[in-house]
């Protein structure tokens, strides 16, 4: 124990090391604070939904009540959906800055609504977010390099290496020094993170998982530094080699792989879904209405006993062709989604050989801010939209009138509680 204490005293005297550790702690705290502020902003935006929604739907209800028309209610009522950030989201914001986490939908064709985005500033999103994941994946390795590049070579250049090796327990010395540096680096990241995670109410299992990721990722870089150190080059050569390795592993290979993945796995442009759906929907005005209804009833026999259409416009026909339009592009939607998942899987697969990508993938998965979380949110929107349709169909296909009180009977979106 006292040996370790001596090493610690030696380390404290190295100004560069202490400055580096203090800097890493500051960066970690700043990144955690930035992430927590962003998540708080997102939560506040979600918390502001009910008031806005009550005002909006109240105004719609006021004039619909005069007509008692369920079709107009379905057409003019928008319902909010949202994707609350998971407790760990502050640590890895992932796609939450470019994908919507609030989306209002109505009972019309969903494919014309579900791909809409929210307002965000593209120039701010372009460089990527400053969050804990960034500090860990991009910056922490640089600090490992700063503290480990001259672990042995520094002593060699000072002419002490042979003497230190000759001491009894010489091997233990290097292990102690490396362990101490690694522990301090880990602490600079893990202590602020754990405090922030506790404040955000992250589950113990998740915190432990992140701590394991931190230690494992830093260990990888310590191992790289040790490998380079075995070449017995000068400290300067070690530092340059390690920085170059960092550049290649963290910046160049991922960008090259991105080009390769997008070229190897072409995704049919989503715009084609929107165009095909709109073509299918609008065609309904130009074909016999019975044709639309036959197709709709064939797929949804539960409404087939509804009264036949007259000459006048009826919203059940309108909503039926919107649903037909959605169903006509369902295979395209499946293919598009499969394409996105393939690309995502390819990116994650790279994470098995490239720790930088692997850590990013793991953190965004644990934080539920990755593509899978986005798609899960879309699934929740789809499920809610089905309930919304069924609700309005219950009035339209049964020719029941829709009064002010019926607005309160509409299904409510419920976000899944995520832990």
């Amino acid at each position, binding site marked *: 124990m006292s040996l370790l204490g001596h090493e610690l005293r030696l380390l404290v005297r190295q100004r560069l090391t202490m400055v580096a550790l203090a800097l890493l702690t500051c*960066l970690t705290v*700043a990144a955690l604070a930035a992430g927590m*502020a*962003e998540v708080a*902003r997102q939560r506040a*935006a979600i918390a*502001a939904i009910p008031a*806005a929604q009550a*005002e909006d739907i109240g*105004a719609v209800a006021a*004039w619909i009540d005069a007509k008692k028309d369920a079709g107009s209610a379905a057409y003019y009522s*928008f319902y909010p959906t949202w994707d609350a950030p998971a407790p760990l989201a502050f640590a890895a914001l*992932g796609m939450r800055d*470019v994908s919507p986490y609030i989306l*209002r939908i109505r009972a019309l064709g969903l494919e*014309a609504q579900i*791909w*809409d*985005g929210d*307002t*965000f*500033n*593209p*120039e701010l*999103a372009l*460089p*990527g*977010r400053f969050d804990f994941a960034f500090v860990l994946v991009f910056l922490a390795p*640089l600090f490992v390099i*700063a503290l480990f590049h001259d672990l042995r070579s520094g002593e060699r250049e000072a002419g002490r290496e042979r003497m230190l090796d000759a001491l009894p327990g010489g091997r233990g010395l290097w292990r102690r020094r490396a362990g101490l540096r690694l522990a301090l680096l880990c602490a600079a990241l893990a202590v602020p993170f754990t405090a922030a995670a506790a404040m955000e109410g992250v589950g113990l299992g998740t915190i432990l998982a992140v701590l394991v990721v931190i230690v494992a990722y830093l260990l990888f870089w310590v191992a790289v530094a040790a490998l380079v150190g075995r070449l017995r080059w000068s400290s*300067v050569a070690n*530092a*340059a080699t390690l*920085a*170059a390795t960092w*550049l290649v592993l963290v910046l160049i290979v991922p*960008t*090259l792989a*991105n080009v390769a*993945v*997008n*070229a190897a796995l072409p995704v049919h*442009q*989503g*715009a*084609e879904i*929107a*165009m095909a759906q*709109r073509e299918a929907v*609008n065609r309904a*005005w130009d074909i016999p209405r019975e044709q639309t209804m036959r197709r709709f009833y064939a797929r949804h026999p539960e409404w087939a006993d509804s009264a036949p259409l007259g000459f006048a416009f009826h919203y059940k026909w309108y909503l039926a062709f919107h649903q037909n339009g959605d169903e006509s592009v369902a295979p395209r939607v499946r293919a598009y989604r499969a394409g*996105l998942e393939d*690309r*995502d899987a390819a990116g994650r697969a*790279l994470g098995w050989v490239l720790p930088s990508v692997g850590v*990013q*993938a793991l953190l*965004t998965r644990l934080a539920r801010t990755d*593509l899978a979380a*986005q798609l899960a949110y879309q699934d929740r929107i789809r499920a809610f939209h089905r309930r919304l349709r069924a609700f309005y169909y219950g009035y339209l296909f049964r020719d029941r009138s829709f009064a002010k009180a019926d607005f309160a009977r509409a299904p409510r979106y419920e976000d899944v509680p995520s832990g």
Partner: protein
Amino acid sequence: MSAATLIARDELRLLRRNRVAVIATMLLVLLTLVAVATSWAHQRGIADLRDRQQHGAETAFKAQPNRHPHRVVHYGTFIFRPLGPLAAFDPGVDAYTGSSMFLEGHRQNSANFGDVRQSSLLVRFGQLTPAFVLQIVAPLLLIFLGYGALARERERGTLRLLMLQGVSRRSLVGGKLLALGTVALVAGLPAMIGFVAIARQPGALALPMLITAVGYFAYLAWWTVAILLVSATVRRSRDALLALLALVALWAVTTVLLPRVVPGVASAAVPLRNRLQTDVAIARDLRQMGDSHNPADPHFAAFRQSVLDRYGVDRVEDLPVNYKGVVGLEGERLTSSLFARYTSESYAAQEGQIALVDAAGILSPTIAVRALSMAAAGTDFAGHRRFLDQAEAYRYALVQRLNRMQAVHVSYADDAAEDAGADRRKRVSATNWSAMPDFSFARASGSDLARGALPGLAIVLGWLTAATLLLALATRRLGARR
């Protein structure tokens, strides 16, 4: 041959003998060539795809059968943002903004299907473009090759030796500068080859390209000077090592850390209203301005009276035009005026955020060169806004043209009828659709792009000037005893 050139030659010979330096430079050249090739292919692919989709959308619009004009208002049209030639050099925000937009009546839709939501998580590590290589990778190579230029001479004691032999400080630093500057030129050259290829494309504009070239030249020159400055000023037992660590730290802060920290600060400082709140606010304002659903609404009651007065009739049935179309015109005018108000608020907020980021160019030349590069390529927010503004103008003109068509070509009686043949009578001839003008994006002029890039260029040149002055100062004290 002057002393400076001799020293430069010597330094370059040393670099040539350094196998690691040669390999690193070759790798950078290779990386740039790959970036140029893939970025070029990507840009061509996107441009072709959008062109094809745009044609498809126009053909579909024109192939519509006889339709009621209001159906066409809802059928709408799709437009795609075309890319300028310089987007192959710096695609900027293209992947982050949607590239396609659905234009219809009563609604202002977002641009959707940006690449960032269609790619794997790798896209957030950065995109391999010539701009990325020059902004981020090339400086690190220069650091590796240049950190020791002066620090090494001092560490080994050769600095004093050179000075004793009568080499002036100026020619010593000048020679090293010349050598590292040559490396910087070699590093920047492959990107310039891509540049020449782009310049031969139709639509390439000379002025923005010139500014981009000057900007990157000044940026790499700044790094060259800064590296020598650090290499000249470190004074510790292990000069070269300290110079390297200081420079890598400087690089990490300017190219990696600050470009990420500053946008976070900007987005916290200037909040944006989200879509849901905007839509609810627009609906609220619309109710206050005039609610076309409400028969007793004062605005529309007054509007109706003014239309009746204008034509000198008492009932809407007696109007020579279809009142439904006239109301459509008025309704669209109201909603569009609100869209204009709220989008300009949102754009102003976003531009405020960007102004904060641009001001941070004072802290990091990388931020400044990035702003200048995107602005000159027309791939910054201003370029996207240019598209959005034109899209909205086109949408409004198209919808109002259709509303006028409904007012003039569909009779009020037919429009209100619900008998068996009414649907056929309400429709106007399909020949009208092909007479509609297509959307054509008016690109920014060269001088507009250049003007957008000038602030960034000024900041980069300011950095270069400051670093050069400091280097001149450090040169005078080079080799002095502490």
